[in-house]
C-alpha cells in the first residue's frame, strides 16, 4: 500500500506491507534508527514517537495507519543542530546510562512539557510511566525533566 508521511519535516512516500509496524517502517524503510525497539510488546516505550501531536508507542501501530500523518521522532528534536533544552538537561544531569531508553524518554518528556510546561515531580513520574529504563536511572531522568520545568 502507498503510504505518505511527514517525519521531522520531510515527506516520504513508500510502498508498505500492511503487516509492517510503524517502528520498523521508521527504522528500516526511512533509516531513522533513533527510535528503538526494546521489548516489542508495548511495555518499554523505547519506540515512543509523536504522531499528529499524540505520543504513542510505534510498535503498536501499523505503518499504513500513519498514512497522511505528521510524525516527530527523536531525530527531529535537534534538527537544527542545537540540542533542545530537554536534551541539554539530560546531558547535564547524566540522565542516561546505556542510552537505549533515551529516545523514548525524550519523546515522552517532550510531549509532557508541551501539554504541561510546569509539571510537578509526580506528574513527571506519571508521564514517564510508559518508559522503562533497565539501568534504573530514573532519578536523574526525573531531575532533568524537573530542571527544564523550572
Amino acid at each position, binding site marked *: *500500500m502507498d503510504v505518505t508521511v511527514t517525519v521531522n519535516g520531510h515527506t516520504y512516500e513508500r510502498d508498505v506491507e500492511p*503487516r509492517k509496524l510503524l517502528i*520498523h517502517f521508521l527504522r528500516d524503510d526511512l533509516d531513522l534508527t533513533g527510535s528503538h525497539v526494546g521489548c516489542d510488546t508495548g511495555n518499554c516505550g523505547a519506540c515512543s514517537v509523536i504522531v499528529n501531536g499524540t505520543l*504513542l508507542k510505534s*510498535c503498536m*501501530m*501499523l505503518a*499504513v495507519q500513519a498514512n497522511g500523518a505528521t510524525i516527530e521522532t527523536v531525530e527531529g528534536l535537534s534538527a537544527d543542530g542545537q540540542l533542545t533544552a530537554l536534551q541539554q538537561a539530560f546531558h547535564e544531569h547524566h540522565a542516561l546510562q546505556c542510552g537505549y531508553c533515551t529516545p523514548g524518554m525524550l519523546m515522552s518528556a517532550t*510531549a509532557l512539557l508541551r501539554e504541561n510546561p510546569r509539571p510537578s515531580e509526580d506528574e513527571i513520574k506519571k508521564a514517564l510511566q510508559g518508559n522503562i529504563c533497565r539501568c534504573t536511572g530514573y532519578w536523574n531522568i526525573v531531575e532533568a525533566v524537573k530542571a527544564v520545568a523550572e
Partner: protein
Amino acid sequence: MLLREVEYAKPASVAEALGLLAENDGARALAGGQTLINVMKARAASPDALVDLNGLDELKGIELAADGTLTIGAMTTYSELMASAEAKARPILGEVCATIADVQVRNRGTLGGNVCSNDPTNHLPPLMCAIGARMTIVGQAGEREVPAEEFFLGVYMTAVGPGELLTRIAIPAGKHDGFAAVTLGADGTCICNAAASVNGSVRVAIGCVDAVPVVITAGSPDEVAAAVRAADLDPPSDVHASAEYRRHLAEVLATRAAKEAAAR
C-alpha cells in the same frame, strides 16, 4: 516483530466497516490496537484482514443528555475521556481510565477496545457492570442495546457477534462509585479488581476472578464481604496469585470499592 501477512482496510463509514467484516470471516475490527497488535505479534491471533475503525467519526465523541446520561463513542480513547468535561458527569470513568497502563497506551487505547477484548484482567468490564452501562451493537440486521451484565459472555468473548460492532456505551448519571485494584506495579495489570456503585443498595462487580465480571449486591458496604464469601468464587491460580489469595483480594477490594462509593 513481523506480523503474519494481513490485509488492511480503512472504511469511511460504519456501514462500510460492517460490509467489510461481513464479507470476510477472517476479518477483525482494529480499534486502538493496544491489545490486538501485540496478540498478533505473538500469533495468538492471526486475522486475515484488519478493518481499521480509526477515522470513523461516527464512533467518536462524548455526549451528555439533559437527564445526565452519558453516551460515549466506542472509539473514544482513554485520554479523550479523561480530558472530557462531559465525562465528569460520572467521575469514576476518568479516574479509572487514568490508571490504565501509561500515557502512550491511554492516548491510543479505546473504551470500545477495552470492553470488546474482555480480557478478565481489564479494568472496564467490571466498571461497566457496576455502573449499569448499556452497550449499543450494530450489525447488518440493525441495532440493539445490551446491558453490560449481558454483554460479557466469556474470556475474550462478548455479545458483539461476527460481523458486528460496538458503536457506543450509554451510562446513567451518578457519583457514588468506587474502584479498587491490586495491580502488578502502579497502574499495571490487575491481579484482582472491583468496581462499586451505591444507589440505595450496593452493587459491586469483581474482575479477574472468573471469565466475566461477577456482580454482587448488598444492603450496605459492611455486608459486601459476606456477600462475596457467599458467592463462593472459584478464581484462577497463576504466577501472580493463588486462587485462595485472589478470593481474599476479592473480598477486600469489593469492600474497599463499596466504602469509597458510599463515602462520595
